[in-house]
C-alpha cells in the first residue's frame, strides 16, 4: 500500500504530521517540564525559560519524593497494583469478548441482539452510581480493598466496550474467504489461523489497548472500593500532599504522571508492531 503513494503526497503527509505531533506532545513535555522543576522554580517564573515552560536547572526532587521520600509508601505499591489489576482485567475481558464477538458476528443464534443491547446498556450506566451497591456487597463478601475486588469492577468497565468494538471489527472481516480456503483444501482450523486470525488480530489488539487504558484511568472505583492495600495510582495521586499544607503537590503529581505514563508508552510500542502488521495484512485482502 506504500507503493502507490506519490512523492508529493508522501512529503505532504509528513508535513501534516508535524502539527499533529506538536499538539500531542506539548502537554506531555509540559508535564515532564513541571516534574523537573524544583519547588522554587514552580513558584518563580524567573527560574524558567521559554515563557515559564522549561526549568533552567533540572531538579530531581519530585522523583525522589515519590520513590524514596515521603510519598514512597503511597506511590510504589499503587503502581504495582495498577499494573496487576489492569492487566488481569484486560486479559479476561478481551478473551471473553473475542469469543462473544466472534459468535455474534459469525453465527446465527437467537439472543445475539439482546447480548449487544445488554452490553450497551450496562456500559452506559454512570460508574459513580455503582459504587454504593458494590461497596456494600464487597464488605459482605470480603472483597473490599483487595485486588480481585478491583479486577471485577474493571471487567464491567472493559467487557461491554470490548464486545462492541470487536463485534464491529469482526463484522468487517470477509468470512467468505474462510470458506474459500476450506474449499481449497484447508481444514477449518487452518482456515481460521491463516485467513481469519490475521484479519482479526489488529482488532483484538486495538481492543486490548483501549480496555487497558480504560482500566488504567479509573478513579471512581479505586478511590471508593479500596483503602490502602489495593489502591491504584489515580486514587493514590489524589492522596498526595505537599511538603506543608500550603504547598500544592504540583511537582509530585507531575512526576508520578511521568512515571505512570512510561509503562503505557512501552505497552503501546510493543502492541504497535502487532497493530501495524495486522493492519497491513488487512489492507492487502480482497
Amino acid at each position, binding site marked *: 500500500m506504500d507503493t502507490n503513494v506519490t512523492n508529493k503526497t508522501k512529503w505532504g503527509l509528513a508535513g501534516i*504530521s508535524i502539527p*499533529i505531533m506538536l499538539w500531542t506532545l506539548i502537554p506531555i513535555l509540559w508535564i515532564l517540564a513541571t516534574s523537573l522543576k524544583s519547588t522554587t522554580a514552580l513558584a518563580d517564573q524567573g527560574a524558567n525559560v521559554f515563557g515559564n515552560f522549561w526549568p533552567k536547572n533540572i531538579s530531581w526532587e519530585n522523583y525522589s519524593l515519590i520513590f524514596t521520600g515521603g510519598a514512597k509508601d503511597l506511590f510504589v505499591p499503587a503502581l504495582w497494583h495498577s499494573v496487576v489489576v489492569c492487566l488481569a482485567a484486560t486479559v479476561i475481558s478481551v478473551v471473553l469478548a473475542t469469543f462473544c464477538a466472534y459468535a455474534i458476528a459469525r453465527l446465527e443464534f437467537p439472543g445475539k441482539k439482546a447480548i449487544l443491547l445488554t452490553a450497551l446498556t450496562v456500559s452506559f450506566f454512570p460508574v459513580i452510581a*455503582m459504587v*454504593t451497591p458494590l461497596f456494600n456487597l464487597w464488605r459482605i463478601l470480603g472483597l473490599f480493598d483487595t485486588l480481585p475486588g478491583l479486577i471485577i469492577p474493571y471487567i464491567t468497565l472493559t467487557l461491554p466496550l470490548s464486545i462492541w468494538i470487536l463485534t*464491529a471489527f469482526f463484522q468487517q472481516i470477509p468470512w467468505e474467504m474462510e470458506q474459500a480456503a476450506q474449499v481449497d483444501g484447508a481444514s477449518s482450523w487452518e482456515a481460521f489461523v491463516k485467513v481469519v486470525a490475521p484479519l482479526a488480530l489488529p482488532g483484538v489488539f486495538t481492543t486490548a489497548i483501549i480496555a487497558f487504558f480504560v482500566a488504567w484511568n479509573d478513579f471512581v472505583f479505586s478511590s471508593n472500593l479500596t483503602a490502602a492495600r489495593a489502591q491504584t495510582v489515580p486514587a493514590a495521586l489524589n492522596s498526595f500532599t505537599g511538603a506543608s499544607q500550603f504547598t500544592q503537590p504540583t511537582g509530585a503529581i507531575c512526576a508520578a504522571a511521568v512515571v*505512570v505514563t512510561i509503562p503505557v*508508552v512501552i505497552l*503501546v510500542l510493543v502492541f504497535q508492531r502487532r497493530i501495524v502488521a495486522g493492519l497491513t495484512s488487512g489492507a492487502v485482502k480482497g
Partner: protein
Amino acid sequence: MSTVEDTKTGARSARRGEKKPQISDRTRGERKLGWKLAGPAFLVMILVTFYPIAYALYLSLFNYRLTDPAARKFVWFQNYITSLSDPLFWKATGITALITIITLIVELVFGMAIAMVMNKIVLPRKTLRTIVLIPYSIITVVSAFSWLYAFKFDTGFVNHWLHFLSFGAFDPTYNWFGGTWSSLTIICLSEIWKTTPFMSLLLLAGLAQVDQSMEEAAKVDGASWWQTQVKVVFPSMKAAIMVAVVFRALDAFRIYDNPYVMTGGANNTDTLSMLVGRETVTRAEIGMGSALAVLLFIFVLIIAGVLVRGFKVDLTGDKN
C-alpha cells in the same frame, strides 16, 4: 460460497417462518455453539453489573442519607420530581450537552483527519502512530491537572506564549478560570486532546479494512478525492464510525474529571456527573444521588438510541 449463503438464508427463514417449526441439526448446532461462545461474557456481564444497577434503581426511590440511616424512607418518585423541577439540574444538563456536542464534532473531524494521515503516511509512520496514542494513555485526572497548570497565569506557560505570539496584545495575567466560557474552552480543549486518539484509533482500524480495490476503481472512474471518500470510504467504514461516535458521545456525556479538577463546578461549569458525585459522595444523599444517576442514564440511553438509529448499522449482520 453460494451453498453457505443458502444455508444461512435457510436458517433465517426457518427462524422466521411460523409454518416451519422444525430446525435443521446444523442450525441447532450453530445456536448451541453461539451461546457456548457468547454465554460466558454475557454471564459475567449480568452477574457483575446487574446487582449494582438494580440496587441503584431501588435506592433512587428512597429518601436516604448515609449519615442518618434511621430516617430512611420510601418516597416513590419524589427524588425524580425534585430533580426535574430544579433549574440547577437543567443548567447542568445544558452544560453537559454543550460539552458533548462541541467535543464530539471536533474530535470526529480531527480524529478522521489524523486517522487518514496515519493510514497513508510513510515517513514518520511508527513515530506518528505511537505519539498520537499517548494522550489517551494519560490518566484523565493527570491530564486535567496538566492543562490546569498550563493555563493558570502563575504556574502556566500558555499566557506567556499567547502574549509573545500576539506581539504583546494578549494580557499575560488573563485568568482563564474566571469565567464560564473561558473555563469551558479549556475543559473542552483538554477533553479533545485526551480522547481524540480513541477516535482516530478506531477510525484507523476501520479505514484499514476498506477495500483498496474499490477506492482505486473509483479513482479510475474519475472520482475526485473527496467523492471517493464520501461515496466509497466512509460508507465502508460506517460500523467503525458508529462505534467510535456512540462510545465517545456517551463518555463525553458522563464527563466528570476535567471540570472537577479545573473549576470544581465554579462559574456554571457543573456537569450532570458532578451533580451525581456531589450528592452521593460529598453529601451522602444516596437516594437523591441514585435518582440523578438514573436520570443521567436515561439521557444517555436516549442519545445512544438516536445515534444507533441514525447510523442504520446492524452489527448482528442481518443485512436484509
